[in-house]
């Protein structure tokens, strides 16, 4: 099951920055939409556990996540409902609930997001990260290492 869920994903792109508030989530969303527009099969993985912005940006914050044989089914968004999205935003009882977790718990959830979500066949999986260079980033890269990690895009403002 570990390899299987990501076996259908051809390329993985990490979007990070170090600094907060520079537009990582905005850029990840726009990048995914642009790739979809170009005809690719796209998925977005939002590993910002403390501040998941992507569900709100795509107006699916009230969606629920369902289970299937191979694990969690991502929420499908976009005009043709063809972009797969997974975020902790869907797992919270209320959108305002705070996720105040220490590293090991975050690590465990990120591993689940990587191995237990039924992504299906995707050309690109865009991974939106939180600010900083911490647990989420280390865990994400470690969990994705056995797969086709295409590379990382760094976002910043001129300040």
């Amino acid at each position, binding site marked *: 099951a570990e390899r299987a869920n990501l076996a259908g994903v051809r390329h993985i792109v990490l979007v990070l920055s*170090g600094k907060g508030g520079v537009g990582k989530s905005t850029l990840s969303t726009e990048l995914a939409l642009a790739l979809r527009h170009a005809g690719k099969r796209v998925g977005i993985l939002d590993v910002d556990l403390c501040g998941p912005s992507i569900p709100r940006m795509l107006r699916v914050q009230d969606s629920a996540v369902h289970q299937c044989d191979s694990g969690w089914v991502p929420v499908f968004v976009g005009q043709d409902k063809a972009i797969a999205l997974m975020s902790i935003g869907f797992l919270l009882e209320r959108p*305002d609930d*705070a*996720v105040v977790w220490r590293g090991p718990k975050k690590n465990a959830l990120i591993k689940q997001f990587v191995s237990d979500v039924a992504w299906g066949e995707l050309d690109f999986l865009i991974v939106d990260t939180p600010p900083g*260079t*911490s647990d989420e*980033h280390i865990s994400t890269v470690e969990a994705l290492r056995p797969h086709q990690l295409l590379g990382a895009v760094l976002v910043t403002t001129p300040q």
Partner: protein
Amino acid sequence: SSSGDEALREKRARILSRGLPKQKPIEGVKQVVVVASGKGGVGKSTTAVNIALALAANDSAKEVGLLDADIYGPSIPKMMNLKGNPELTPKNLMRPLKNYGIACMSMGFLIEETAPVVWRGLMVMSAVEKLLRQVDWGHLDYLVIDMPPGTGDVQLSISQNIPIAGAVIVSTPQDVALLDAHKGAEMFRKVHVPVLGLVQNMSVFQCPKCKHETHIFGSDGVKDLAKTLGLDILGDVPLHINIRETCDSGQPVVVSQPQSDA
């Protein structure tokens, strides 16, 4: 019976809190104010720096310190125009660097400017502990702590280790920022830290040529959130190029242009 329930709840809370660290105040520091937000890039460091300077400017008899708890992206050294490794006192405590009368300590003084800090939670906690307790703060009336973005290890460690007089939450009026600011307020409620109020940053941009005002990040978003949470708006700061320029050059606006609107 309600008194029986109350007693049961108290007993449960006592048992649960046995594993948690005990809160111990920092020696010599009277009051601690944290500046947080939940969202990144809304102006926490800028606000923290200017709050510290304003506290000192308002009452020159008060001693103010500034702690940069953003281990991954320390901004305070650049904004306060401070560089270099801190000296050690005979008691093996780090001496904070001073500028504009404010004693500052940051991870940025301990590592090179471009070196990333790619650490897991446990190491970060021990670094925060050092920055809190192994610094020779002296006698401070106020210690302003600039928090990193998010609601994770650093925020928890600081809230659980030292008594905090209050938290100031900074946000822009943008929806996604407000979502995270709400979570930040929720977090402080969970760890029993009183929230003093919200600061609305980047509220409006005025064109320097034609003076036309644009609310780039929306308007009144923070005011609405304050109403929902029952909090005060402590301030409303516009998006002004002076604020950014003076911070980047290490001369924060409160010090370099105290009379300006910004």
